[in-house]
């Protein structure tokens, strides 16, 4: 009799990072990785990298794929680079004096914010009537200058009435998309809620376009399956939900990495370090779950109220630029460049010049001579660029040029004398330089490209510092270990690491130094990490072995650790949280309690007795969470209801529905 093999359940996980877009094809039940694919991220359009992955993934019949799930740095990057759409933010019932006195207006993430009379108080009572004529007057004034509108009303989670009335009125006079604060956050922090609403509004169309592009790429390959997007806390939401709440994708990439690390290694207690091309991201796994930040996600200095994994990120990765700082010390990152080995692999004349430089003894070439600029797009649209920028493009048309030569042709001495921001941002031109990847080419640990170019660059760099090449490499790896180790300590302790020359922290510095590099004859110091390190990302092995030694722990490199981030995108569960706030309805003058309000996202009830109110709230929260989870694509969701006291006589009834994603077409 033939043994029947169970049908394979294939799922595709995709992670779009700052440098690479990774894809893995997994068997969902056995966690077995069937195929993996890496392609370069195109920053100006993230969907290109995803289309490549979907196109190239090695599978005869793509229609067998039961789910596609993506984590993306799209939102995080757009915020960091100020590329979101223009937003008008209406602050209803906010106190301008208070906001100004704490200098909080910068935190709103848009320069177009307007104060409107209105808002509620802690008891959900109208603090002041909503000034609708003023709101409409201001809408009329700004509607042709912005792309979306955000509204946040004071204490709107307790009573969203003013936000809803504002939405109806604005929608009557213009067609701009409108985002309401209470729909994104039930927390009472009014500034964070406003920031969250403004950021969400600014990312709305971008995420919609992104999801539509991914959907089209899936369609082209006949993949008719649920599409999920990873949230900042690592849980999943379906594409429709994601298109409405892009802020929830902030930090989704690093969160997926942490989950992928746990998923592939099976370690329930660990520190996950994801070493990418641009950054290294840290996250903590405890009892099998990613630790979530108490404060809510923060990005580029903006504090939001959406839930996200507690993460720490440093600008150090495989393609970080190795440079000299002002004190002629080796600096690594945060800028990411194309490794010289790769540039030389792509273009002919690079290796010869670098070799010639390496042979030049006098005057000794400077490490800055190693920097190259090159054209990234064949026929860029140049109309929006300055004359100088267009000139640079012309100079680079024949092929890559050393940065110093480009500057010389422009009659300049230093790159700081010219602003080429548009060219960098639009990825018209790119930068290449000496990177950790080059050093790996020299020592033979990773050699896909031209190691001769890397060798020559190393020679130039070491000569300039009057070191031999082995000494330089030793010094370099010590530096890498120190940067990552200090990041680990800072992340786990939340304490600032003192500067090296800070004499007030003499002992702390000595302790750190002696633990990283034992120096003292009589005193041995050691920092012991009680959990293993899980390394993720292509450079993880080489960069983290020494770090694990510093912390006297194991480095766990799960199978396929290079693409664990993409595996993490499919490993998460679908989660939906529904909250109901219960708080007293006070009589005039707050003398007595008349009853209790039950405020959910879209509904408001009043019940006389607290006991009944709590019972009712639990029922509603549970059934709302359950149906929302089913709509979001969860399979047999389990609901957990929790009652949290939230100030005097006030309660937060929180229902959390969690389930594995429902697979299939």
């Amino acid at each position, binding site marked *: 009799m033939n043994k029947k093999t169970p049908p394979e359940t294939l799922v595709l996980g995709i992670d779009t990072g700052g440098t690479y877009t990774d894809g893995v094809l997994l068997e969902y039940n056995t966690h077995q990785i069937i195929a993996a694919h890496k392609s370069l991220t195109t920053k100006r359009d993230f969907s290109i990298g995803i289309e490549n992955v979907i196109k190239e993934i090695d599978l005869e019949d793509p229609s067998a794929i039961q789910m596609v799930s993506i984590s993306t740095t799209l939102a995080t990057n757009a915020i960091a680079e100020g590329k979101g759409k223009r937003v008008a933010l209406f602050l209803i019932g906010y106190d301008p004096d208070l906001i100004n006195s704490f200098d909080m207006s910068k935190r709103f993430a848009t320069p177009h914010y307007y104060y409107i009379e209105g808002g509620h108080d802690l008891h959900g009572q109208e603090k002041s009537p909503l000034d*609708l*004529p003023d709101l*409409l*007057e201001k809408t*009329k004034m700004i509607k042709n200058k912005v792309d979306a509108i955000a509204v946040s009303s004071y204490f709107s989670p307790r009573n969203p009435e003013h936000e809803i*009335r504002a939405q*109806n*009125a604005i929608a*009557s*006079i213009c067609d701009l998309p409108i985002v309401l604060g209470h729909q994104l956050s039930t927390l009472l922090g009014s500034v964070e809620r406003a920031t969250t609403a403004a950021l969400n509004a600014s990312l709305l169309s971008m995420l919609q376009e992104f*999801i*539509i592009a991914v*959907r*089209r790429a899936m*369609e082209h390959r006949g993949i008719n399956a649920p*599409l999920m997007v990873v949230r900042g806390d690592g849980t999943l939401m*379906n*594409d*429709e939900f994601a*298109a409405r709440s892009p802020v929830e994708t902030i930090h989704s990439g690093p969160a997926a990495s942490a989950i992928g690390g746990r998923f592939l290694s099976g370690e329930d207690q660990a520190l996950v370090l994801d070493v990418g091309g641009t950054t290294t991201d840290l996250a903590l796994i405890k009892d099998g779950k990613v630790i979530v930040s108490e404060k809510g996600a923060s990005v580029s200095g903006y504090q939001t109220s959406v839930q996200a994994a507690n993460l720490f990120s440093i600008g150090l990765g495989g393609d970080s630029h190795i440079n000299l700082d002002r004190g002629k010390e080796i600096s690594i990152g945060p800028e990411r460049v194309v490794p010289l080995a790769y540039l030389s692999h792509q273009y002919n004349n690079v290796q010869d010049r670098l070799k010639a430089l390496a042979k030049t003894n006098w005057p000794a070439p400077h490490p800055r001579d190693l920097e190259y600029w090159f054209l990234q797009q064949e026929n860029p649209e140049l109309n929006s660029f300055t004359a100088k920028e267009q000139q640079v493009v012309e100079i680079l048309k024949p092929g890559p040029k050393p940065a110093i030569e480009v500057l010389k042709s422009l009659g300049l001495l230093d790159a700081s004398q010219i602003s080429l921001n548009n060219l960098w941002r639009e990825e018209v031109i790119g930068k290449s330089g000496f990177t950790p990847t080059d050093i790996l080419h020299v020592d033979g640990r990773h050699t896909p490209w031209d190691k001769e170019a890397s060798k020559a660059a190393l020679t130039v760099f070491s000569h300039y510092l009057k070191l031999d090449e082995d000494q330089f490499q030793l010094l370099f790896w010590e530096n890498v270990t120190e940067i990552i180790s200090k990041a680990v300590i800072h992340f786990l302790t939340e304490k600032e690491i003192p500067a090296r020359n800070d004499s007030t922290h003499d002992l702390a510095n000595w302790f750190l130094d002696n633990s990283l590099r034992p120096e003292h004859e009589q005193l041995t110091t050691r920092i012991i990490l009680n959990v293993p390190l899980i390394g993720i990302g292509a450079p993880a092995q080489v960069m983290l072995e020494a770090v694990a030694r510093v912390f006297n722990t194991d480095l766990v490199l799960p199978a396929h650790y290079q693409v664990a981030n993409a595996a993490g995108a499919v490993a998460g569960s679908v989660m939906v949280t529904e909250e109901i706030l219960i708080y007293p309805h006070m009589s005039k003058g707050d003398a007595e309690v008349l009853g209790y309000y039950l405020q959910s996202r879209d509904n408001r009830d009043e019940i006389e007795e607290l006991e009944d109110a709590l019972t009712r709230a639990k029922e509603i929260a549970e059934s709302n969470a359950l149906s929302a989870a089913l709509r979001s694509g969860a399979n047999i969701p389990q609901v957990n209801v929790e009652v949290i006291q939230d100030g005097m006589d006030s309660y937060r009834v929180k229902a959390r529905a969690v389930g594995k994603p429902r697979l299939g077409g």
Partner: protein
Amino acid sequence: MNINKVDTQKAYQLLWEKITSLELAPGEILDFASLADEMGFSKTAIREALNLLVHDHLVEAPPRGLYVAELQFSDLEKISTIRLNLETLAAQQAVLNATTDDLVILQALCKEVAVDTQEYFELDQRFHQAIAQAAHNNYLAFTLQRFYGLSKRLWYLALPYLDFLPTAVKSHIKLVDAIRDGNESLAMEIMKNHIEEFYLKIREIIKEKDLIKE
């Protein structure tokens, strides 16, 4: 997210706009292969969008092929009769049901100034939608929206010969005042006159210029 639904919706809106503004002329044959090509949508999306337009009576579907619904003079009479009664009903219901917010919205719309015909259409449409909204009857609002689409073609037909647009705005202001004052009969009368006057002019122009066959 269903890509086909998203595209169908977009294609529907674009085609609705093209037909109601006569860019696609009454009687024009609609070939979905070439429309799909021209507008950059899949054939499926175009086919489904055209089906929706058949329901709107803007596209005709005889046994073979599809074409933009013809405009006949009798349509003008039929459409104007219905709109006259429905809009008057909306005005009456608005007097009975309008909230202070509805009034603020209507007043804000009265203060808007259109700089070109396109904007004027949009503004007029918003105003009538806001009245329907103030009536707080979604079935009424839905029905009015459909007839607005049919009526818009007549309007566009007469457009090159129209010169009375700004006076319509004055009647908007009076109408809002009547709603505010709770004057039911006055509001109904203003709306009735407003619509009547509109169709009267359109009818005159269409006859005079012989814009549609009898």
